[in-house]
């Protein structure tokens, strides 16, 4: 008991006095408040709240962090905000009900999942024009792009597939089945693997990018939680891709997965219905959005301990970092 208290005090002291390598901000979209909350990664406090369009979900920054793109799903628009002022500069044509998107490494093309229309829309952020619309499965959501920019991925929740898009032709070149309700996709940094989470299937599938063949499938077993409530959604890779932090939805836990052995090493209790997450600058801390409890949990990556909960708006969903 005493060591536990000591550890708690130590980590509290770290929060109060410690400072991470670089300061920065975590931007969180609040799905049912039509706002973004800006959290200071040093003080771990909300320093700004800006209004957005209706039902903001996906959020990402331009490569120079001078622009923040926000999927305002119910406004049927991707909004472009000046992160220094919170001013909405303009909307991008996004197709209907944009839920999630990914910015191509060229810093120009946004690949947007239009959830209600079974379409992926490609928008040029400079010309503000739609470059292509690609038919995908029912309820597209998860979006990823390979580090070399050659492949974009859309996962469709009801069709249960990862759709592989050739970004040169903007056409599908493969469709791979995954377990029920795929929610999120990520490439590893070397571009060799692509991971997909399946919310209802309760699994995480790893694909070999070179041939789109399934390499592995991970399952989760949170002690004391019924398997039906263990629902993998958002996930992120740690520094050097050694581990993945996987949000397990209504089980209220984050799983820490070894990215080499595909084994779960830890479960970390966070807020209720954990959705997505973002790291701070040096990836020493990860910030998770907890939809139902309306807060963000800060996790110390090295010790795998939750440090603090930060109240944000109602139903926080997406998260993105800017220095």
């Amino acid at each position, binding site marked *: 008991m005493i060591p536990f208290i000591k550890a708690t005090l130590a980590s509290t002291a770290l929060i109060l006095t410690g400072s991470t390598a670089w300061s920065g901000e975590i931007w969180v979209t609040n799905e049912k408040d039509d706002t973004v909350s800006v959290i200071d990664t040093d003080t771990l406090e909300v320093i700004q709240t800006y209004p957005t369009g209706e039902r903001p979900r996906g959020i990402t920054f331009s490569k120079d962090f001078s622009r923040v793109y926000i999927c305002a799903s119910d406004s049927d628009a991707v909004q472009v905000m000046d992160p220094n002022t919170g001013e909405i500069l303009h909307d991008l044509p996004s197709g209907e009900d944009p839920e999630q998107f990914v910015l191509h490494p060229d810093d120009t093309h946004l690949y947007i999942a239009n959830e209600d229309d079974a379409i992926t829309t490609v928008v040029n952020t400079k010309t503000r024009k739609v470059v292509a619309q690609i038919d995908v499965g029912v309820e597209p959501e998860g979006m990823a792009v390979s580090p070399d920019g050659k492949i974009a991925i859309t996962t469709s929740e009801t069709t249960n597939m990862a759709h592989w898009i050739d970004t040169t032709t903007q056409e599908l070149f493969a469709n791979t089945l995954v377990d029920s309700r795929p929610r999120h996709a990520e490439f590893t940094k070397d571009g060799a693997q692509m991971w997909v989470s399946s919310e209802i*299937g309760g699994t995480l599938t790893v694909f070999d990018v070179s041939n789109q063949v399934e390499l592995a499938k991970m399952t989760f077993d949170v002690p004391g939680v019924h398997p039906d409530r263990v629902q993998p959604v958002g996930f992120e890779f740690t520094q050097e891709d050694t581990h993945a932090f996987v949000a397990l939805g209504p089980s209220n836990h984050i799983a820490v997965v070894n990215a080499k052995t595909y084994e779960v090493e830890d479960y970390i209790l966070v807020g209720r219905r954990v959705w997505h997450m973002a790291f701070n600058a040096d990836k020493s801390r990860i910030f998770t959005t907890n939809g139902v409890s309306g807060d963000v949990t800060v996790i110390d990556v090295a010790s795998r301990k939750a440090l603090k909960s930060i109240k944000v708006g109602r139903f926080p969903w997406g998260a993105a970092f800017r220095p």
Partner: protein
Amino acid sequence: MVRIIFLIFFGFLSNGAAAGVTLNIGYLRVDVPRPPTLSNLDPLPENNGLAGAQTGLQDNQTTGKFLGQSYTMASTIVPHNGDVLRTAKEMLVVSPYLVIDAPSNLLLAIADLPEAANALLFNTSSGNMALRDTECRKNMLHSLPSDVMRTDALAQVFIQKRWRDLVMITGTYPADTAYAAAMRRSLRKFGLKLSSEKIWQADADMRRTAAQEIPLFTQEFGDYDALIIADETHDFGRYVLYNTWQARPIVGSEGLSPQTWSPVIEQWGAAQLQSRFEEQHSRDMTGPDYAAWAAVRTLGEAVTRTNATDPETLRAYILSDDFELAGFKGRALTYRTWNGQLRQPIAIAHPRALVAQAPLEGFLHKSNELDSLGLDRPESKCEVFQ
């Protein structure tokens, strides 16, 4: 290893090769006239159920186009006094997969046709417990929850809220008495007390006199924790609300109600299904729509994963551990292998919001919490299903 080969196979198909797997589905509805009700405020949509099947078909088609699989659906509506069995036979010639909206006696008659021996039928209309029990059929799955699944869900709410002393008003139509019977069974199962029951004799126009009649009618109940309305015909129940002698919650067919589906469900991605449905049909999705959607999606999911269209393969897959349907209820939906009932959470809702979703926390089960609702394996007397 098997799974990997499977994926390569599909990957190959999606690269342009035409596979030509087509699944034909029949949708059969028997039009049964509704009894007259006191209010005409909520007419049942003409395409109730069928609209859900159409949305499910569209979901299947979108998925199928990436796999070289296609789906068709032929729908037929027969009047209740028409030749239902002849129509069913004709439809079975075209497809062994029938999604059916019909009373339970006709469901059984169709299932017992020699032409249906190797068919796979979906009951999307009857909550009758017997169809999942002594009268189950090997060729019939049930995507609609049984009445007892819904009343068990409500009983769990009673336990959680400590509403232990219940009273009930029951209508006289068969659907009302069946619901009341299911409710009595659920109250017994969960050890709750039904201290008094009254029958609603439909001989007053409550649009004029509810404020005078209902207080008197309910005064005889004395005190209780909650009043159950068994009025699945939706005749009188709406006039009981806010007119009772005692200020107590109203539950059952009105008020806080256990539902297959409700327009107020928006969690678990349901908002997407609701908006897709609304866009296609310009109205809210109902319970029968949901059951028909789930039936068609069940077939779609089985074809997607097996690339087969024969009933034997699909039935085996649907009843296997590999099958799971993402049904926008927050958990994977699967079929009970002992009677073909689709396991599913039950929404506890009022017309403006979802209040809870059963199974509620704390109602444990040794294999699947969803089996705390309805006929569990040891209770079901269904023998022919497996």
